[in-house]
């Protein structure tokens, strides 16, 4: 992997050039609330102008014009600006909220259409969660960087304009400091930035280790390692302490450098003012307004540099979002289909999650219709992968999969997947009522149909015994039910879906023998008139299956009835134990 790693500097350059283009593309895709943005900008510019006028009137007052008119005007300006700036904050917050809403929706729509293989480096679970959390990056870019840059820039220009109207030489002194200020801010921004980033990741790492240490305290107790762990903890907190102190010193250094620029500016301004005032080329009012404006101006310039640095921080997140928005979606074209039936057949199917590592290397097998087939093999042999290919979560690299003799890839994806229903190990229950959970993915369901499904899944009795029957709320992941109860609800859901093909993934894992054998009867009932595939690595399912398919090291080594298959597979003979010889 290290061999062809590109030069980091060049990558950075290319990324930076691409960033702006990506930003623009993103803005187009995420439906910005343009009207709100324009109102915000107009208001903001109005408030800036009010501020400039306010400073000018203050200068006029201090220059000796203490007339009632000036004072009234000044007070009016202060109050209007107060109102205006509050309004700007409000409009800004609403705009932010709108941007976030639009962005989250767009991202969610997109994510739901992503193919499984988009998530190669992380589990889909983490990936999806992180993506939707990342939605705020667009809002941050616009409201915390782009718009503030505009308003800081406008402030600087407005101030220069006003000072220029008093005396052109003063505005020159102001301008002369801009390059120096930018240079220093840039230098310190750069130093700080690189140090902070490294420290932040170091800090996060230490925090994580501390968190893990704390989580593992029971382990330390069981192994009587309390003293060693305490030492480890002291070491970690010590390192955190040194990191914090270092960051604080850096902060001090940064504010020192900023103050240094301010001081230099104060020196230059004082000297200029002294000469211009003493030879009478400017009056007191011009000087006072210049003096007051100076802090506004240098504030605006500092802000500009800060926002510029912010932009760099945001880039990473924006890149990631842009990458997702550009990603290929699942192809939904193809022939529509309903009520598919028939045998499922795999011919010479090869597949690997990465190019260099194959999971399935030439699979040939059949899952006959109206039959329960057990898919057997040791953990990691490729059983789940095979099922993922059947439901078209992934596409095979070569080979064909057919249903009733026709290639499954010819059908429209959504229609095709609707023919399958999966009952997973956990049952996929979420917080919500029993009814919501059972009807999930099945559209509108009548009460009778719901009752029938619950009865058929032998869930009716225990559901009715719950405090509110079908309207009882389940906890997160259905934690207030037993494993068997969760599976029954999942079966009821599968029955309601009217999908012809039912896939059970390790349905009786971590269940005691009594509960597991009861569940098998439920599954047998559900299998009537359907095609069922059961993934298993415990022998309990053999009571359910009419046929078996054995997967070993990425190929099917035996299939058929148990007795037929057992002749070809030593694995199966061992696995099934007594049952084969019966």
């Amino acid at each position, binding site marked *: 992997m290290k061999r062809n790693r590109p030069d980091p500097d060049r990558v950075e350059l290319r990324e930076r050039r691409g960033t702006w283009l990506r930003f623009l593309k993103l803005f187009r895709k995420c439906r910005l609330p343009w009207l709100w943005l324009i109102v915000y900008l107009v208001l903001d510019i109005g408030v800036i102008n009010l501020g400039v006028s306010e400073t000018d009137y203050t200068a006029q007052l201090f220059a000796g014009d203490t007339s009632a008119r000036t004072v009234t005007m000044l007070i009016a300006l202060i109050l209007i600006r107060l109102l205006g700036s509050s309004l700007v904050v409000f409009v800004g917050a609403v705009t*932010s909220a709108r941007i976030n809403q639009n962005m*989250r929706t767009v991202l969610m729509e997109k994510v739901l259409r992503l193919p*499984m293989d988009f998530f190669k480096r992380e589990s889909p679970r983490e990936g999806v969660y992180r993506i939707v959390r990342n939605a705020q990056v667009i809002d941050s870019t616009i409201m915390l960087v782009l718009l503030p840059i505009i308003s800081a820039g406008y402030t600087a220009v407005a101030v220069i304009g006003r000072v220029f109207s008093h005396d052109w030489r003063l505005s020159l002194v102001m301008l002369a400091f801009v390059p120096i200020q930018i240079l220093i801010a840039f230098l310190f921004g750069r130093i700080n930035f690189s140090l902070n980033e490294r420290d932040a990741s170091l800090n996060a790492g230490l925090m994580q280790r*501390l968190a893990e240490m704390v989580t593992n305290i029971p382990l330390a107790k*069981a192994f009587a390692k309390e003293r060693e762990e305490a030492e480890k903890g002291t070491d970690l907190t010590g390192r955190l302490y040194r990191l914090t102190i270092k960051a604080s010193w850096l902060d001090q250094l940064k504010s020192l450098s900023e103050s240094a620029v301010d001081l230099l500016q104060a020196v230059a301004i004082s000297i200029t003012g002294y000469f211009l005032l003493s030879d009478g080329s400017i009056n007191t009012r011009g000087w*006072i307004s210049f003096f007051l404006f100076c802090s506004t101006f240098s504030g605006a310039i500092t802000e500009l540099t800060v926002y510029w640095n912010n932009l760099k921080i945001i880039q990473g997140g924006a890149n990631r979002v842009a990458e997702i928005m550009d990603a290929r979606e699942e192809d939904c074209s193809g022939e529509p289909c309903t009520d598919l039936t028939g045998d499922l057949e795999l011919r010479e199917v090869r597949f690997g999650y990465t190019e260099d590592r194959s999971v399935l290397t030439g699979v040939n097998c059949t899952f006959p219709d109206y039959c329960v087939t057990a898919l057997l093999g040791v953990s990691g042999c490729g059983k789940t992968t095979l099922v993922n290919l059947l439901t078209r979560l992934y596409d095979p690299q070569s080979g064909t999969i057919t249903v009733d003799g026709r290639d499954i890839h010819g059908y429209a994806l959504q229609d095709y997947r609707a023919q399958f229903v999966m009952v997973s190990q956990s049952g996929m229950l979420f917080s919500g009522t029993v009814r919501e959970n059972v009807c999930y993915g099945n559209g509108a369901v009548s009460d009778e149909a719901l009752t029938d499904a619950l009865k058929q899944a032998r869930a009716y009795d225990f559901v009715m015994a719950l405090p509110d029957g079908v309207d009882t709320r389940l906890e997160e992941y259905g934690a207030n039910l*037993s494993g068997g109860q969760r599976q029954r609800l999942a079966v009821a859901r599968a029955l309601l879906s009217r999908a012809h093909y039912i896939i059970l993934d390790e349905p009786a894992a971590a269940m005691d023998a*009594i509960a597991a054998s009861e569940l098998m009867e439920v599954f047998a009932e559900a299998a009537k008139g359907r095609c069922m595939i059961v993934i298993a690595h415990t022998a309990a399912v053999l009571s359910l299956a009419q046929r078996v398919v054995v997967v070993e090291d990425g190929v099917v080594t035996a299939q058929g009835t148990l007795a037929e298959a057992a002749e070809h597979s030593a694995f199966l003979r061992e696995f099934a134990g007594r049952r084969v010889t019966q």
Partner: protein
Amino acid sequence: MNGQKQKGMWKRTLGLFRSITIPWYLYLLQVILGLASTKVALLYIPYMTNMQMGNFEDGSVIGIYLALALLSTLAGIVERIPSFYAQATVARRMQNRLIEHALRLNMRSLERSASQLVSWITQDCSYADGLITSVVGFLTGMAAAYMSITSMSAIDLSMVGLVPVILIYICFSTWLEGKLMFLRERRGRRANAELTAYLAEHLSFFTQIKQLHSQQEELQRGKAAIRSYFKADVYQAALTLVDGLVGGSLSSFITVLVFVMGVPLVNNGSISLTELAAFQNYIILAYQSLSSLPSLYTSLMYYNGQLFYISSLMAEPEEVYQRKQDVDEADQDLVFDGVSFGYGDQPVLRDASFTIPRGKLTLVVGPNGSGKTTLFKLIERFYTPDSGAIYFGSCPAEDIHLPAWRKRIAYVLQEPQLFDGTIRDNITYGLDRPAEDGEVAAAARLAQAEEFIAQLPGGYDFEIGENGSRLSGGQRQRLAIARALMLNPACLLLDEATCNLDLFTDRAVTDALMQLMQGRTTVMISHNMELLTRSDHVIVLNGGQVEASGPPAEAEAHSPVLQALLRANHGSI
């Protein structure tokens, strides 16, 4: 209303502060430097005002102005140094104290607080400094306000009358801000929780959503969650508008008041324009000090509230490690005599009496929820029986030193706890001495882990990720078994330790364990009834009670539950 409770809380918080050494000198330094910095700022103001008004006189004003500007910048920076040292020091000492306590905490208290313990240690510890700092800040603020008011009154006494007005306004706006903040946070937290819960729970089922073809349904639900988040955002924005108008208006109002009162004074000649400008600059400084004063109460309450959890945890009892005697070298029977135990008012084990014979293989069976795991935790002495006692031979287990007791037992859980580190680190975790490569490999071989370790990049140096996240469930279990075997324990407890393994690996591991533990005490919880014929002794639990205890044949004859379990097993095989 809650006076009694409040008092109790403060008492606990004070106890928390007594448990660490507080660097008082740093806080003292903070006060002294704070006052010095205010003094410099007050000296600086007249010169700055003269500069602002263009009164340069002969130019000496400029020199002093610049010198004081430099000095006040430096003072502002130096002032912060003791404060960040104090903050980091207190946080570190608090963290160390808390970790030490958590490690010695009794298991029940630990389990109750387990989910929050991490955030208490990583975040809440910094609140301890917040409490002291708010008091220190109050004292410094008072002194600074007093100093600025003295300087102001030197200009004109009548205008100092503004100060009480400002103070009242500050109190009002602080109160209002607190109220609004509360409303905002409550709404914000709710909306955030809703969205997060939706994302975490629903979108985490990404694969299943596709399998259940429910994209449209998810989209509708997701949009609803996003929409309610948007509404909460707008609600918060409206509150911010009010807050900004009231809170942000103070400095504007001060300026207005200064002009309204000051300009007539200038016009009738009692003060000069320069003095008016100076007054404005002073009052801004005074305002900064004053504004921190009314928040003392709120911040004290806030920090006290935040420290509540830590101080409660510190009040929980620790385990007693030193007991009466060391553990016998020779192995003994483990005898439960009328042991009852429950979580809160929920009984788990009721009046359990049985013997786990030494040097034998004992199988513990029973339906889910019958109390099997609790039984193991009682053996490990993570819990103390509510009534009854456990004996090691004839000696009460309670009398044996805790570390020695736990060191002779190796305990493997169904969901083993591993830590981020290499395979080797994890396998050798329990060892008090450096391990040889050969030993580690032997333990891995016995646990059927050698083969998969060899295939991992780096082999024994492979980093397994947080809680072993880069390994499969079966691989994690085998690692935990290897770790237990490394200890060469006198007693081995296996709680469904092989349930994530496929049948073959499971058999191989079990065979190896039985071989190794020949003649030593082994206790297994398992759903695998094949083990029944291979074990020497069986304990059947049902609903927290011992239904049978004895050799397999005897137990089977006496226990309907065991018979049912066997029937269910035969039915499927």
